[in-house]
Each structure stands twice: as structure tokens, then as C-alpha cells.
């Protein structure tokens, strides 16, 4: 199957997944036990209130019609009104989304630097002290809860050494880079722990292959072979793992935001749950799922450009 056919097929799958995601989010309110109107109102729910809210949320209409209203609203960017703040969910999400995306991208950047540095270092020094130290350190990172890691970084680097701000977000762009460094590092350490394990073993396997021996025999410099021949092939599986981990990165970002008091989607999501502000929760679920879908689409498409040999069955 050629590249064009693959891309077409991958896009069709994406459309299908988007459809499924909307059905699931829609279905969650309707098929999980409990009357959504009563749940939303909680203690404030009188018979009359509940009936009014059912009417307002169109819960009395047939299910397909309700689904259609939900999806057409989504496409137009209408995500309802927050129960708690009485303002359009769209505005609340749109103002916070860039902050969360920025934090996630920053974390990906730092994780990339960590992964290449330590993954290659461990692979090149396989079995020696450097390798062992890197493996143990990042094995610990793998099981460290990110909210606690964030707090430890604050304790040591902010409160102890005064190198970084304790919390907050800053006002200018350089401020943001400065304030977001520790939260991004927190996330990057967790993410790179998975990626380093993968890149290390992938580089080691690739190093044994014939074409690498040929490249060495041609008299190419070690560094050249490592970057041009080994890494280019070894990186493919690491990119796949990155795509699979992206959902965890987003989830982590939401928690870490609350640790560092960053006004992103995370804070909004977790306050909304306590107040049962379902429209907000729903909107954030949609938005984060869209991000994961997009990233995995990019990962899959990048394959055909990184490795033209890959054929798709």
C-alpha cells in the first residue's frame, strides 16, 4: 500500500474515532446510573428544579436528537454553560487551553533532550557504570508520582536553593518559560523514563545490524554512524511509544498544573468535579481526547516520512 493510500486510510480511522469519542462522552451521561439533571443539581435539586433542568438540557427529547444537538453544538464550538460559573464553557476552556498545551509541549521538548542525552549515553556505555546509574535513576522516575516529584523539586530547587519560582505562571513570554520550567521538568522526567528505556534497547539492537557494520567498515566516524545510521532507525519505535504515552502526559500535566498553581485546564477540571459542573468536565474530556487523537495521527503519518520502507497492511 502506497503512502497516499495509507494516509487516506489513517484519516478515515481518525474520523471514525472522533465519532466514537463523541458517542462515548454523550453516552456517559445517559447510560451511567442516575438522572443527569438530579446529579448536576445535587442537594439543590427539588422536583421542579430537576424538571426545569431536564427541559433546559433537552433530556426529554429522543436520544438520537439529543446526540445530534450535542455534536452540532460541538462543531460550532458550543459546549454549554458552566453550572458553577454561569458563563459559556467555550470561553473558559479557550482561555486556559494554550497554557496547558504550552506546558505539554515544553515537557515534550525537555523529555526529548533528556531522552537523547541519557538514552544514547546509556546505549553507548551499555553494561558500564554510566548505563547502570541512568537505568536505576529513571526506573525510580517511572514509579514516582508526578505530583510528589513536583513538590520535591519545589522544596529543593525553589524553597531551598531559590533557583526557581515556587508557583504561578508569570506575565510575559520569558516569564512563562521561567515559571513553567519546573512543572515541565516534572512531566519530562516521567515521560523520558519510559522513552529512555525504549531508545536504549532500540539503539543496542540496531547497532548489531549488518548495515551498521558496513557503515563502520567504510570508515565513517562513530558519531556519524550513530546519528545518521543507528539513531534514524532506532528512533521509530521510540516515537510510537511517545504517541502511546501522550495521553498519560496530558493527564499528568493536569495534575502538575494544580501542584504549581498554573491556571490551565487542570485546575478548571478538578474544581469542576467537586462542584459537579458536568458541562465543563465534558468539554475538557473532548478537548484532551482531540489532542491525543491529533498527536497519534501526526505520529503515524510521520512514519511514512521517517522510514519510507514501512509498508502498511
Amino acid at each position, binding site marked *: 500500500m502506497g503512502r497516499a493510500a495509507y494516509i487516506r486510510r489513517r484519516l478515515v480511522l481518525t474520523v471514525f474515532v472522533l465519532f466514537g*469519542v463523541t458517542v462515548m462522552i454523550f453516552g456517559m451521561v445517559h447510560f451511567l446510573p442516575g438522572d443527569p439533571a438530579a446529579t448536576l443539581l445535587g442537594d439543590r435539586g427539588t422536583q421542579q428544579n430537576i424538571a426545569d433542568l431536564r427541559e433546559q438540557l433537552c433530556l426529554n427529547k429522543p436520544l438520537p436528537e439529543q446526540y445530534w444537538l450535542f455534536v452540532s453544538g460541538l462543531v460550532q464550538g458550543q459546549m454549554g454553560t458552566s453550572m458553577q460559573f454561569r458563563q459559556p464553557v467555550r470561553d473558559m476552556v479557550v482561555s486556559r487551553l494554550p497554557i496547558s498545551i504550552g506546558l505539554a509541549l515544553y515537557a515534550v521538548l525537555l523529555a526529548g533532550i533528556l531522552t537523547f542525552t541519557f538514552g544514547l549515553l546509556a546505549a553507548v556505555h551499555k553494561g558500564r557504570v554510566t548505563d547502570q546509574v541512568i537505568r536505576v535513576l529513571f526506573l525510580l522516575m517511572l514509579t514516582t508520582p508526578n505530583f510528589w516529584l513536583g513538590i520535591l523539586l519545589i522544596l529543593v530547587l525553589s524553597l531551598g536553593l531559590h533557583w526557581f519560582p515556587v508557583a504561578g505562571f508569570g506575565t510575559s513570554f520569558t516569564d512563562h518559560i521561567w515559571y513553567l520550567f519546573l512543572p515541565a521538568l516534572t512531566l519530562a522526567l516521567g515521560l523520558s523514563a519510559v522513552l529512555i528505556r525504549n531508545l536504549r534497547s532500540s539503539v543496542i539492537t540496531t547497532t548489531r545490524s549488518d548495515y551498521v557494520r558496513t557503515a563502520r567498515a567504510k570508515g565513517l566516524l562513530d558519531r556519524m554512524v550513530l546519528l545518521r545510521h543507528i539513531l534514524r532507525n532506532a528512533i521509530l519505535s521510540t516515537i510510537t511509544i511517545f504517541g502511546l504515552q501522550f495521553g498519560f502526559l*496530558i*493527564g499528568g500535566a493536569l495534575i502538575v498544573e494544580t501542584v504549581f498553581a498554573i491556571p490551565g485546564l487542570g485546575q478548571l477540571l478538578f474544581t469542576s468535579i*467537586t462542584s459537579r459542573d458536568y458541562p465543563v468536565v*465534558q468539554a475538557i474530556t473532548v478537548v484532551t481526547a482531540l489532542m491525543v487523537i491529533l498527536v497519534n495521527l501526526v505520529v503515524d503519518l510521520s512514519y511514512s516520512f521517517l522510514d519510507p520502507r514501512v509498508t502498511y497492511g
Partner: protein
Amino acid sequence: MADNVLSPALPQTAQSAPVLHLSFGMRLQKIGLNPTLLAGLIILGAMILVAIAAPLLTPYDPIAQKLDEAFKPPLSPNHPLGTDNFGRDIFSRILYSTRLDLQIGFVSVMFPFIFGTILGITCGYLGGRVDTLLMRVLDVMMAFPFLVLVVAIMSIVGPGLTGMYIAFGLVGWIPYARITRGEALVNRNLEYIQAARTIGATTPRIMARHVLPNVIGPALVYVFTGMVLAILIGSGLSYLGLGPQPPTPEWGAMIAAGRQFMLQAWWITALPGFALLILGVGLSLIGDGLADKR
């Protein structure tokens, strides 16, 4: 060293040792253990013991407040890890919360493991439309960040420990279904399955007696990864105030409660995390050790 140069790819375990002189590692392998697995089992075993014997290990009630004893630093007399803002002994609270966090790990994984495995085997073995449907459902479920989906479900079924278990149950089966489906797909065309079919075994019997024992291994290995994940995310939810409610001792909740006293009493928020880390490492080692055995 000489044979290392000649065959660098030779795995270390294959190096011959004198038969009469069994090393510690080889003795372990004889009884089905390897050092990684053993280390993990020791850590988990110790944690379970601590959970059971908590009242014997500490004289303090984990939720009894003693305000005149508040903010004692670690290594104080009678309080090895210090006390929190209510004067509660942190060591006791960490010990007692082992019970809850182990429970979160086990319960969160049990239902998804059973359900996911049954679903995966059925779809992988039967194939056809059922299987296609499962794959599409998996594609959709995988599009959600795990934590966000769990939180979204908890926003409907309600926060707290029960809500958390329900949410984990509804979301956590995905990896088990993926793993066992893949394995069942490979196994269904192997000779032993054909043989079972030829002698007239029914489909449910083949799935339960022949496919299951052969595909369960990788899923069991994943159970330990799943437990680490459940404990990390469970403590995260608890950190956010969505898990067990205070004054119940739970590591994530303790970390959250200590956060506001970071400046004057770092130990309240810093120390419970080490317990989480140790349990996580123990479970990961078991998982890695089991994976190595295969």
C-alpha cells in the same frame, strides 16, 4: 573473556558454570525465581506485613490529634518521622495507609483483569465481526487520556473510593483485552487448538481450557504494571481530594495536606511519597522479573 570476543551476542546466563557449584542466581532459577522477581516479592511481602501488623509496629492511633505535639521534625523522640499539623505521628499514618493503598492497587486491577482477559480471549479466538467491533471500541477508548476518562466517569458516579473503583473498572480493562486478544489471535491457528477442535471440544471449553492457560502469561505480567498505574493515579486522585476523605490516612492525601506547610515542615508532604515510591518499585520489579522469566 575470550569467548566474549568471539560471540558478543551470547547472553550472560548461557555462560557455562561448574555443575557442582551452583551460584545464588542459578539456585533461584531452579525454584522459578530470578533476582529481580525475588527483590520485588520481598518488597511487596514486607509491605503486606506492614499493612497487617501496623498496630503492632506503632503505639499511635493514625487519626488521633494531639495539638501540643504538632510540627515535630523527623528523628524527634517518640516520633521517628515527626508529626503533622495536628500532632499526628507521620510514621503511624504512613504505616496505616499501606492498607488502603495496597487495597487500591489490588481492587483496581482485579475486575479489569478478569473482564479484559475474558473479552480479549473471546474476541481474539472467535475473530470476525465481534473482533472488529472490539478493535474499534479499543481505538476509541485509547483516544482518551486515562486520567481524564477516569475523572469524567467519577464526575458522574461521584468522587470517593467507590467512584474511583467504578471508574478504574470501566476504563482499566483496555490493556488486558489488547494483550490477550493478540495472543489468542496467534494461538487459535496453532496445532494444539486444531487438535482440540478435531476431537470435538466445544468452543467455550477450548477457550477456557486451552487458550486461556496459554495466553494468560503476558496479561499477568501486565497486572503489576497496572497496579503501579492504579496506585499512582489513585494517589493522584486522592491528592486532588477526589479519593478517600480525611482524616483517613492515604499517602496521596497526606502529601496534599502537607503542601500548605511546606515552608515550616517539609517532612509532612515529602515523607509519604517515599512509601509510594517503594511500593511502586516493588511491584515494577515483580513485573520485570516475571517478564524476564518468560
